[in-house]
């Protein structure tokens, strides 16, 4: 049971980790993340990298949709902007990897702000449709601005280099991707302890009231778009280093829907929800494949017959979560924590 957690100051009340136990668990998590590459094989390292990239992009979308209430279906296109920026900077300019990722994030933020302009006039589904325009327009730019993007054949990205070492394996890339993911997550979590983050929440809950309270709507909404796109841009940049080829077909509209589904499954408006949603959406299809693998020794054709079933099961799991846990995986996690906080008393 959790006891002796009374707060004496506002700072203590606002702290990200408000008990020693939480800090210890966070330290254990960081240690586990640091040990992971030495225990896992190439496959699991690849999945960890992919999940981390998705976590960054989903967190960005969560800032925009979960916290600010602006539904966007342009997140994948903004990832594309980041990926192309990094690809061009790396392949043509040869600039350092961290500068490239920052450049990818900033260019995506700028583009995101432009496509965020309609958010002052429209919201909800209307805004979602407006942001789909980002997907179509940017896809057209990626495919036809051949002098920069090399058209439909795309850009081959040299491996990221860090102090002369080529980051060309999932093991090496893990050390680039995971620290950036942790930093961006801490940044996002801290954002909502600031005036800017709280303004996002105020706009989401009631934009007219927020304006009456003195929150400039246009600036706040555009800031949210810029931040979400920055996260998407960095995620896209890491994606470019991860897959080493960027083409116009790398960031389809379907990816935006995947990212939106991740925040809904994980839990909108919580950082933890974004993480859990992205990890769930990335890893569950792989876990289902493993289950099919268990059957293979007794049923050699299992993969042939169960592959379509696996897709249906994944879809059914998403529907199941939406019905049984509409507040997402984050709420399940909170309930589990609450159980231990109150144990041995009934929750």
């Amino acid at each position: 049971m959790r006891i002796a957690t009374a707060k004496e100051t506002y700072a203590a009340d606002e702290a990200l980790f408000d008990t020693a136990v939480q800090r210890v668990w966070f330290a254990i998590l960081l240690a586990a993340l640091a040990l992971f590459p030495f225990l896992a094989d190439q496959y699991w390292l690849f999945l960890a990298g992919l999940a981390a990239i998705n976590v960054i992009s989903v967190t960005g979308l969560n800032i925009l949709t979960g916290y600010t209430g602006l539904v966007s279906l342009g997140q994948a296109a903004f990832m594309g902007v980041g990926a192309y920026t990094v690809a061009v900077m790396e392949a043509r300019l040869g600039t350092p990897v961290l500068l490239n990722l920052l450049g990818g994030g900033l260019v995506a933020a700028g583009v995101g702000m432009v496509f965020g302009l309609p958010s002052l006039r429209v919201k909800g589904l209307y805004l979602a449709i407006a942001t789909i325009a980002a997907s179509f327009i940017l896809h057209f730019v990626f495919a036809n601005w051949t002098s920069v993007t090399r058209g439909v054949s795309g850009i081959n990205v040299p491996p990221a280099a860090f102090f002369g070492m080529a980051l060309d394996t999932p093991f090496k890339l893990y050390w680039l991707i995971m620290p950036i993911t942790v930093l961006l997550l801490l940044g996002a979590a801290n954002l909502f302890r600031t005036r800017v983050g709280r303004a996002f929440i105020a706009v989401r809950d009631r934009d007219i009231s927020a304006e009456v309270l003195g929150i400039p709507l246009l600036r706040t909404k555009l800031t949210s778009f810029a931040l979400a796109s920055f996260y998407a841009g960095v995620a896209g940049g890491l994606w470019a280093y991860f897959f080493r080829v960027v083409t116009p077909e790398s960031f389809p509209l379907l990816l935006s829907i995947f990212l939106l589904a991740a925040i809904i499954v994980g839990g909108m408006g919580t950082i933890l929800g974004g993480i859990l949603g992205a990890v769930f959406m990335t890893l569950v299809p792989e876990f289902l494949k493993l289950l099919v693998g268990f059957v293979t020794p007794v049923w050699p054709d299992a993969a042939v017959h169960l592959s379509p079933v696996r897709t249906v099961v994944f879809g059914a799991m998403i529907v199941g979560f939406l019905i049984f846990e509409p507040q997402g995986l984050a709420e399940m996690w909170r309930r589990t924590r609450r159980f231990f906080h109150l144990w041995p008393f009934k929750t």
Partner: protein
Amino acid sequence: MLTMTRRGFGGLALGAGAAAALPFGGGAWAQGADIVLGGSIPMTGVFAFAGIGIHAGISDYVKIVNDAGGIKGRKLRFAFEDTAYKVDASVAVFNKLVAQEKPTLYYGDSTGFSKTINPELERNGGMIMAGASFASELNDPKKFPLQFMAGPDYTEMVGILLRYIAKEKPGAKVAFVHSDTEFGRDPIATSEKKAVEQGLKVVEKIVTPPGSVDISTEVLKLRRAAPDFTIFHGYVMAPIPEFIAQAKQMGMTSRFMGTFWSMDNSMVQKMGDLADGFMGVMPYRYYYDTEGNAPMLAKIRQMRPEYQSTAYMQGFLTAMLMTEAVKRTLESGQDLNGKTLKASLNSIKDFDTGGIIGVPISIPGNSIPVGRIYRADVQKKLMVPASDWIKLEA
């Protein structure tokens, strides 16, 4: 009565996840001297129609090899997983199979995957790869030294069509209709030049979204250009039937042609009467083809009495060529790695595929620039030969 609470559902989901995570760091490891053919195969998703055929083709050839005692006494094993035709899933499967099965041969499912995995393939150095892609970009042994394709690349496919057209009707007017995708745009720019070299006139180029059905304005453009031959590329089916239907309604006399992925007999016959006269390039014989000496086709028909798609033939031939490369490498006493396997593959000269391809083939580079023109016969409901085998200069 069984009821499920929210907590119960969560527990079940977490339990399933934990159970699924059990093989972490384990899994099925390569057994002794087995030679593993790994595969990122699209058993679901938009390319499943091909993936299922490819899987069957590879599996059957692997069975034939093993029933005959394996390759120099070593068993050939096909280890694959579904990718749903997504590049990230394909790369995940590749990483998994490389970590757990140590393949020396690999089948990839798309151009995107082939390009994405190429640096890792070279870094690994332990295998050769082929796949479902016939992208012209991959037909470059310098940039893709460990890859090959079991047929002509897309530019070569169109080249074979142009060669046929130039012979049938010198100076003919040609139009290209292609999808606005990497796949669709692939051969167009080069083929325009090749058409001019063959003395043909390219009178129109039309770009459409893939699968588009509203093509009425494009058909009007095509009608104004009045081509003798219209070549479709970058589609599997739609919007080819719509184009043909509207063009015929407008009284156009153009002959319509396709490339490999729009040439499967069962797909073409789905067009019904519209398919009559539809032509295209095919690197392999069709399942039902009994012409000439084709023991492998007879064997396939014996193993599978029902029609097998052109994707099946592609998977079957890919496995055959990979097996031949392994056999030649082992016979020369060399280790099995990407370099030796590719060198062995490139040593294949005037090779008899058992009738899968109607002429002996050589693989001096990354492709097999051979094909034949087939025409849809609606009465027979079959694609029938319209030309002899056409070999392009490598």
